[in-house]
Structures are given as C-alpha cells and as structure tokens.
C-alpha cells in the first residue's frame, strides 16, 4: 500500500532525522572522512525517498544505523583499498539491530528539547519567523503581516533558517557547543590506534 508523501515526510522527521547526528558521529568514529559521511547519509535519505511506504520500519533509529552501515560496506567493497578496521567496526554494529526502541517517554521530551535547541540556535530574525510559523502554526502570509515585512522576506529568511537547521541536525548537542564558532564542517575524530 502506497503511503502519501506527507506520511513519509512525517515519519522521516519524527523517526529518522533526530538520530542523524548519532549516525554521523558513529560513522566518523569508525574512520569515515567527513565527505564520505555526508555521502553515506545522503544516500540513506535517497533510499528512503525511493520507498513507497515506511510502515514496515518499526524502529527508525535501528533502520538508520543499519542502512548507513550497509551503504558504508558497499562503498568499502567498491573501494580498491579496504581498511580492515572499517569492516570490523562496522560488523560490530550488528548489535544495533536488536537495540530496543528508546522509550517514547524519554523520546518525546528529548525531541522537544531538540526542537527548542534548533530554533534557539537561529539568528534573531529567523527565530521569530520559525517560532510563529512552526510553533504557533501561522501561515507565511500571516507571519509577514505580523512582522510587517513582505512574504518574500519571510520566504528568504525561512530558507536561510532551514539551511542552518539542516546543518545543526548533523551535530550532536555536545559537538554543537564545541564547534559553535568554527563553522559547521565536521572534524573527523582520529580513531584510537590498535
């Protein structure tokens, strides 16, 4: 049964996107370069975009880890030089599949804090617009009227804000604090020597 696009978007927003920073951090830990990590994450969303339905996915977090892992393994297989530590690290992830879905109780609160953090991290103008539009549910036109600006300004600021939000979503809260003033590029963390 095909689901509507809106349902898939809502699923990805609620069950996949909130875990992106963790998946990225894990990929970086296993030795992935920042650009590889970007590509693996993007490929994961591409696969989701190609699905007719997401109703078979019971645990979004586990699905995200598993898909990223499969993509990483495919990439390693295609690459000429295989780094052994990548494969072992990635295989160790098998346990992830069995990880119980985090309790909704905690998830709800954490999600709310995440949304709060994302909006508070925006520059003043964007934040006003996002608060009115997303939290209070005003239309673009109503936001423009409320702030006494044109709809065009609201749109431009929304695009700017969404770009910042998309970048912020790549970082876990602790990373976000550390690199708040250093732009948004991920710094690959060197793995411990074996």
């Amino acid at each position, binding site marked *: 049964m095909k689901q509507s696009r809106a349902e898939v*978007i809502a699923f990805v927003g609620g069950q996949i996107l909130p875990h992106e920073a963790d998946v990225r951090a894990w990929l970086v830990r296993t030795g992935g370069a920042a650009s590889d990590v970007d590509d693996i994450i993007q490929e994961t969303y591409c696969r989701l*975009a190609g699905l007719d339905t997401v109703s078979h996915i019971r645990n979004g977090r586990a699905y995200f880890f598993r898909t990223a892992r499969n993509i990483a393994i495919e990439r390693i297989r295609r690459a000429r030089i295989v780094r052994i530590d990548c494969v072992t690290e990635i295989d160790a992830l098998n346990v992830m599949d069995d990880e119980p879905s985090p309790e909704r109780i905690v998830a709800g609160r954490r999600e709310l804090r995440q949304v709060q953090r994302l909006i508070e991290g925006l520059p003043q103008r964007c934040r006003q617009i996002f608060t009115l539009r997303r939290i209070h549910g005003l239309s673009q036109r109503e936001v423009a009227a409320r702030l006494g600006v044109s709809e065009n300004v609201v749109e431009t600021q929304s695009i700017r804000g*969404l770009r910042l939000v998309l970048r912020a979503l790549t970082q876990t809260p602790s990373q976000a604090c550390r690199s708040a003033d250093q732009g948004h590029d991920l710094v690959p963390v060197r793995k411990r020597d074996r």
Partner: protein
Amino acid sequence: MTSFQSAKEIDDEAAQWAVLIDGRGLGAQDDPKLQLWLAGDPRRAGALLRAQAAISLLDRGRALAGVEAAPVTGGARLFGRRGLIAGLGGVGAAALVGGVGVWASRPQRLDTQLGEVRRVPLADGSLVAINTKTALDVTLGARSRLVTLRRGEAWFQVAKDPQRPFVVSAGKVRVRAVGTAFSVRRGEGTVDVTVSEGVVETWIEGQPGSRRRLAAGAGVLLAGPISPVIVKSPAEIERGLAWRNGEIALDGESLGEAAAQFNRYNSRQILIEDPRLAQERFVGLFRTNEPESFAAAVATSIGAKVSEDERYIRLSLNE
C-alpha cells in the same frame, strides 16, 4: 555527473525547495522546475525529503508542547523565546512527574470548546489530540492508564508501557492499547474507533463475545457486538485526522457530509437547502473554522448560490 555537487550544496538547494513547497502548498510539488531539478541528480530526491522532514520535525515541537495558535494581540513580545518556553513549561512539569515515578492518580479533566482543537502531552509520554466539543478524564495510575471519553473525539498516541495498559472507555465501549495510535469518537449511540498505528483491542462492557483486535488501517463503528470492521487506507486515516491540524480534508465526500463536518466546529451552521446539492461530491482542504471559504469554493466550483447571515450560511442551487 561532470559538475559534481557536494552533499552540502545539494542540501542548500533542497532547503529552498522545501520552503517554497511549504509556503505555497502542495501544488508547488508539481512545479516543472522542481521536477527538472530532481531529475538532474538522483541525490536531490533524498535531500529534499530530508529538508521537508526537518520542517516536519520542527512542527512536532508544536504538537508535543501543545502550543495553541499565537494570540492575536501581544505584538513584539511574542517574537522572543517566550512563546516556545511557555509552551514547554507544561511539558517540563509533566516530565518531572514521570521522572520521579510518582503517578498522578487524580483524574485530570481535559476539554475543548466548540471549534477548539488541543494537543496535550500526558505525564506518561503519551500524546492526546482533542477535537472540537470534547471532554475526557485522564487517570494515570501505577498499574493502569485510564481515559474516559465523556463526549466528542480524541486521538491518542500511546507511549509504550506494557506494565500499564492504556484503556479508553467511551460509554460501554473499551479500547485497550499497549503502544500505538488510534482515535475514538463518541456519536449518538455509536463509538467510532480507528487505528493509525499498532494494534488495539476493543470490547463492549458486559458482552463477552464482543472482544476483538484491530490492527493499523482498520476502523470499527461499534454499535453492538457484530459491527463490521472497516478497512481504511493510511491516506484515508490521515485525512480523517486532519482535524488535529485544524483542517477538514474532503476527498469526494458529499456536500451534506462536508457540511456536517464543518457544523461540528462552528456556531455558524452551514445549511444545504436542496437535497440534490447535498448529494454533490467535493474535494478540497479547508480550515475547520472557515466554513465561509468552503461555501465560497462550493459556489464557484459547483455553481451554487450562497447567502449568509449571523447564524447560517445557506447554500442553494443556482437556478
């Protein structure tokens, strides 16, 4: 691909499209320029999904915090963080109750006025969306979670907790869930249960044979023990729950049914004065509190005549 874009460049373009679609409505999704952009690189579809999902994630903040529409007055003060934080305060307090393991056992009364829709997070992490003219009592105990639907309609997204079953009672009808989402509506002598996620068990008190399980995609209108189960598509269920966003989604309903839907939310009632007109089918998405725009849309698309006064919006055939 010769001019190879980085993932970040694609993300930036996707953000632009996501905002355009969000601001201009779903029609923008069919924009040929968008289709051209998507066709240019297979990665773009994924990036667009991610950008739209980010918007949806931010919207979930509203749902979770139970923030209602912004007050009309209040001016610039609203634009700070106050709105969001005020909304979060309630959740923080609720979370605190859950965190220390003390469950409120006194029933909590939740109700809505005509035309009002509220989303309320419960202390156990569940979420209730409450439709127009509804009253319910919530009792969160150590062994069970009970909701008594006094009247109206509500949708429940239940936090998983196998130790404490979540039971909704509506008259003699009971609906039990462990971790799932479903809606219950009390009508005249009937109770409509629709499951959007997971499985629920329904039964009628005092009728042992009435117990049955309903999975996602199923609905039942319980009037007696042999009520048939109605299978609904996810899209149909989602459409039926459009009220959670203050919307009425019509997809081929008759004007009579549509009018009845609007009349649930507004004191200004829609009257369809000709039975032939009431049979006409209609498609569209409207705000629950704007019966006038519905009437205007009917007038232009079907060619009906609208006359309005304080209490009624009358639709008649244009003879």
